[in-house]
C-alpha cells in the first residue's frame, strides 16, 4: 500500500508553539475583550 502524503508539513514543536500562542491570545481576548476601535462598520 502506498504511503499517504502527510497532511501537514510542520513538526510537533511548531504545532505546540502555534497552539500555545493562540491559547494565550484567546485567553487575553476572553479576559479583555476584542479591541473594536479599529473596526470600520462601513
Amino acid at each position, binding site marked *: 500500500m502506498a504511503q499517504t502524503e502527510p497532511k501537514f508539513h510542520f513538526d510537533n514543536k*511548531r504545532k*505546540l508553539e502555534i*497552539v500555545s500562542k493562540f491559547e494565550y491570545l484567546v485567553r487575553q481576548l476572553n479576559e479583555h475583550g476584542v479591541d473594536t476601535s479599529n473596526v470600520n462598520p462601513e
Partner: protein
Amino acid sequence: MADLNKINEIGEVQAQLDADASTTETLKQQEFTRVDLDTHASTVDVADQDLFTSIAAARAEVDLFLASNPGEAEIRGLINNIEAAIGGPVNSEEGIWLAEQLGIADELGLVAGSAAEAPAAESEISPERQEELRAVVDHYLEKTREVFEAAGTPIPQEVTEEAMNALKEGVENPEIRAIIEQMEDLQPNMEWVESQSDVATALMGNSNFVRNLSDGNLAAVDTLLTTLESDLEGVTDEAERAEIITEALATVPAPTTPDAASTAIENGDRAALLNSVPESMQTMFAAEFEAWEAEMLQPDATLISFNDYLIREAAGDEGKLRTIALKMQLASIIELIKPFLDMLKSLQGNTDAADEGPSDEETRAEQERDLAIRAADNGVSVEVQRQNETIAAIARYFNAPGAPKIAEFCDLEASPIVYNEAKTRAFLARDENANFKLEDVQATEATIKGLASEQMSSAILSKGLSLNELNAIALLPEGAITATNESGITIGDVLVPYGDNFTETLENVVEAFNEDREEEARQATAEAQAEAALATQIEAGEVNVDGIHIKAAAGETITPELVAQAKALLAQHPKAAGVFDKGLSVQTIQNFVNVLGNPQAVEGEWIILRDNDVYLDSEWGDARHSYPYGELTNEFVNNLFTQKLAEIHEEIND
C-alpha cells in the same frame, strides 16, 4: 468553501456571515464538529502530551469565547488571533491545522490542501487596501528614521529603504500582508504612547514591559496598551492616572524568557544587557549605555544608575521620552518583520540591504580590535588595558578641575580602593538595589579606620580589596584586628590570608572569635553573679554554695576566704562533703579545714574520710575512732574530734 480573504476585510465579514446561514450563528451554537483528539492523533502525528494539553486548553478558551455570544468584530478578533499565532493568513497550512484542532475548520471553510489554492486569492485584496498597507510601511520607515536620527544612533540595518520597498512589493502575498497588518495594529499604540508622557515613563520603568518587548511578546504589550488607552480616556487627574497606570502595569504578564535584560539594566551591566536583548535592540541600548556612561564621567555629573538614567530620560525630556519609547516599539517591529525581510531577500536575491553599514557585531568587533591594538602597544593584556582605560576615565573624572567633593573621598593616591574595577562599576551603577552606593563606600572606609590603628587600616585599604571584602572587614567587632601584614589580617591570633576565600575565611574566623569572646563574657558574668550571691549569703550569716554549707554561730562572721578554702579541700577530697554539707559553724569548719589542710595528718592517715564516717587512726594508741558524718555537730567536732586529733598529734610528737 468560504472565501477567507473576504473575511479578512472587515467590511465584508457581515455579508459573508449573513449570506451563509451565518458562520457566527453556527459558532455561537457550537454546532461544529470537532475531530476527537484520540482518533485524530494518528492522522496529525500528535505525539506528545504537551501538545494534547495545549490543544485542550486552547479549545477550552474557544468554548469560553463562543459562550460569550460573540459578534462579528469578536469573530474577526478570533481569526486575527489565529493569524497572529501562526504569523500568516488563516488559510495557510498552519492556519488550517489549527482550525481543525479547534473544531472550527469547516465553519471557516478550511480544508487541507486549500492553502495551495491561496495564491489565486491574492489578487482579491483591493488596490485601495494595498495602498493603505504600503502607507503603513512608509510611515514605519519615516518614523524609524526620525527617531533614530534624532537620537543620533544608527538606524537598524533591517530598516533600509530597499528592505521596506521589498516589503511593500510583497503586499499581495498573504504572509507579508499579515505582517504589515500587525505593523498597522501596532501603529496606533506607538502614536498613543508617544503622546502620553506619564504612560511612557511608567512603561520605561516597568521591567516586565521592557522584558516583554525584548521577548517579542507583542500580544502582551498590545493588550496592555489597549487597556491603558481605554482606561485613561478622559482621565486628567494626575493621581488618578497614576493609579490606573500602576494597576495596569501590575497585570503585565511575566515574559517567557529569563529577566536577564532587566537585571542587566538594574546592574548597569553593558555586556550582559547587550547579550540579553534582540540584535535589533542592541544598538539602541548600547547608545543609551554609552550616553549614560559619558554623562557619569562628566565632572559635574550627578551619579545615577543606568536604570534611573533611562527612567529620567523618559520622564525629564519629552523628546527623549518619545525617542526611547518609540525606539523600543520600533525595535519590536523589527523583530516582527525580520524573518520576512530575510525571506524576501532570499527570494529576490536582494542582499544589498543587509550589506549596508557595519552591524552591531561588526562595530563591537572593531572596538575590540582597537582595544587589542592599544593593549599590544602598551605591552599588557586586553583585560588589563580595558581596566586601565576604565580607571583612566574615572581618574579623569575625579581629577578634573572643580570636581565635586566626592574627589576628597576618592583621592586616587590615598584610597586605592577606587582602582578596583568591581568597585568602580558598582560606584558608577549606584543603583538603589545594588550592594554599593557612594555612601556605603564612605561608611565602609570610615568604619575600617575606626576598627584598627591608622597604620593597620591604611594597610588594609591599600591592598586593592573588593568592596565585598572591605565590607566583611568593616563588620568585624572592635578589637578583633590585632595585626596586619602583606599577606593578610590577623583576627585574635589567627591570620586570615588575602585571596580567593578571604571573605569566607574571615567570616569563619570572626565567628570563632566571637564565640570565644562570648564564652569569656559568660564566664565573667557567672563569676560576678556567684560573688554577689555569696556576699548576700555571708551578710545573712549562712552560706550554702557548691556543697559548702556554713552557719555562722553568734558572734561569728563567715569569710569568703574560708568558703574558698573549703571549696578547694572539697575538690581534693570529695568525701569531705560528709563534713562540709552539715551546716556547721565557722569555728568548726575552720577546725576541719585546719586538719584536712594539714598534709601530715592526711598523708599519715591520722584522719581518713570514708564513705559514711570520719575515721581517726593511730598506730600508737588505742584509737580506732569512727565518727559517722550524720552525728557530726559543732560540739562534737570542736570538743571531741578536734581534741582527739590533738591527742593523736601529741602522741606522734612524743
